[in-house]
């Protein structure tokens, strides 16, 4: 009897270990329009609606990361903000812009979770569109047609697109954003690679602060007080921590090693 129970334990352990490890196969990459897509489903299904599908590519062409993730207050992880319909109706979160009053590119931005819709769920489906075939106002390839192309992710070089003025992301929202003195310039610096043979990483604060604010990364994502005191490696980054918070789902993906590992090995 004891042997049988030990055998069972052994089988469970082996199966558990086998299931827990990586698959050993290539993961499928999302298509350019799907890169940066976030599904939000805290309360949608309970309310009888499909989950919300949020596309980063459209919003990042119009607004900086800082505006939404610092000023408006969205969390960095899908579902962590806990947005409710009442929040939107009261002009917070999505409702900060999607309020039926804000003008963007000569158009009124449709209101989210409006009281007007009543029983008509078609209005709701503009955002609550998971699994539904909803026609969007903006089509990816048309919208990004003139943008400089890049490999991977959205297939767009967003850095260049912004530098060339093809997008002018808004950084300040009246009534929500705080007027701040401008950012003090931080110098670029090198981060040592832990793997022998891999070049060091040149990190540029300047490139990041065009889009992001200090409090977005510090200390939530990068806790270390002094450079080099936060010990991490590619393992954690691939798991979606540190640089991987943005660079595995929204910003240019991690698969392009030499985008960051560019310092010549001395």
């Amino acid at each position, binding site marked *: 009897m004891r042997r049988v129970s030990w055998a069972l334990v052994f089988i469970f352990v082996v199966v558990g270990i086998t299931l827990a490890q*990586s698959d*050993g196969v290539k993961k499928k990459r999302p298509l350019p329009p799907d890169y940066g897509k976030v599904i939000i489903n805290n309360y949608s299904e309970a309310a009888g609606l499909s989950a919300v599908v949020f596309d980063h590519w459209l919003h990042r062409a119009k607004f900086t990361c800082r505006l939404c993730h610092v000023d408006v207050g969205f969390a960095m992880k899908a579902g962590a903000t806990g947005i409710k319909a009442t929040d939107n109706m009261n002009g917070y979160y999505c409702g900060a812009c999607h309020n039926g009053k804000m003008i963007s590119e000569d158009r009124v931005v449709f209101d989210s979770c409006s009281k007007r819709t009543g029983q008509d769920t078609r209005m709701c489906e503009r955002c609550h569109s998971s699994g539904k075939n909803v026609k969007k106002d903006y089509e990816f*390839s048309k919208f990004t047609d003139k943008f400089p192309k890049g*490999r991977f992710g959205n297939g767009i070089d967003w850095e260049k697109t912004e530098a060339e003025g093809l997008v002018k992301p808004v950084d300040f929202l009246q009534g929500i954003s705080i007027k701040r003195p401008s950012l003090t310039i931080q110098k670029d610096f090198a981060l040592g690679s832990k793997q*022998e043979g891999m070049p060091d990483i040149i990190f540029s604060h300047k490139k990041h602060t065009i889009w992001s604010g200090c409090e977005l990364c510090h200390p939530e994502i990068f806790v270390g007080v002094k450079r080099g005191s936060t010990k991490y490696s590619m*393992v954690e980054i*691939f798991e979606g921590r540190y640089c991987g918070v943005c660079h595995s789902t929204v910003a240019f993906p991690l698969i392009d*090693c*030499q985008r960051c590992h560019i310092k010549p090995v001395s």
Partner: protein
Amino acid sequence: MPYKTGFIKTVVLWGILLSGVPASSEQEFWDLPPLPEASEYGNVLIDRISLKNRIKPVAFSHWTHRQKYTCRVCHFELEFNMKVNTTEITEAANKEGRYCGTGGCHDGKTAFGHDKPYCEKCHNGDRSYGKEKFSELRNFPKSNFGNGINWVKALEKGLITPVNYLTIKPSDEISYDKGFSLEAEWRGIPVAVFSHRPHIKWLDCNNCHPDIFNIKKKTTKHFEMTRMLNGEFCGVCHMTVAFPLNDCKRCHPGMRE
């Protein structure tokens, strides 16, 4: 198979196996799939939506393409997936200049484009299409399995000069060539020797890491032959395109014939 089993159990299990299977070489223990003809090895039939649209499936030949481009170009830069029928290639995408139709490939200038009268050059449903051209490779260094060609040696000798990038030039700084030995899961099997060097000539880091082989130490575990035969780990390439797993000595140099 239990991992590193005890002595008595090993003897009992080997006894069962040896008595049940009239094997003379290790190869016959494994359920290795039958290999196609040399000229057909690495030829892939792509039928994600072809038949649905009443078009013959596409026959893609790896040996034709690998002479001109390294694995990196298609599987890293152009983002073709490693598993057939999982890349969303469409006529529209090709005509837009993505996938097969990328500038510098089948764009109508460098090579025939996705247009009439060239449909049948790909959409022929015939895995042995282009067989007659295979004899052009008869002077290449030989190998016993797969295409019967040692592609690594062919590259080293300069018999082929495949392009290694289209727009993303691989950094000269990343020349990772570490090698190591992997202990076999079964007792009695010699170690497998892995070297990065021949792989990085064809592949980008991202082709394998971190999806196929996790870079975290001691986390890629239990990748036994059975998993490779299932198309995982080394089997992603070394079942259908790179030299097949039948070629034991290429990885287990200590293996007896």
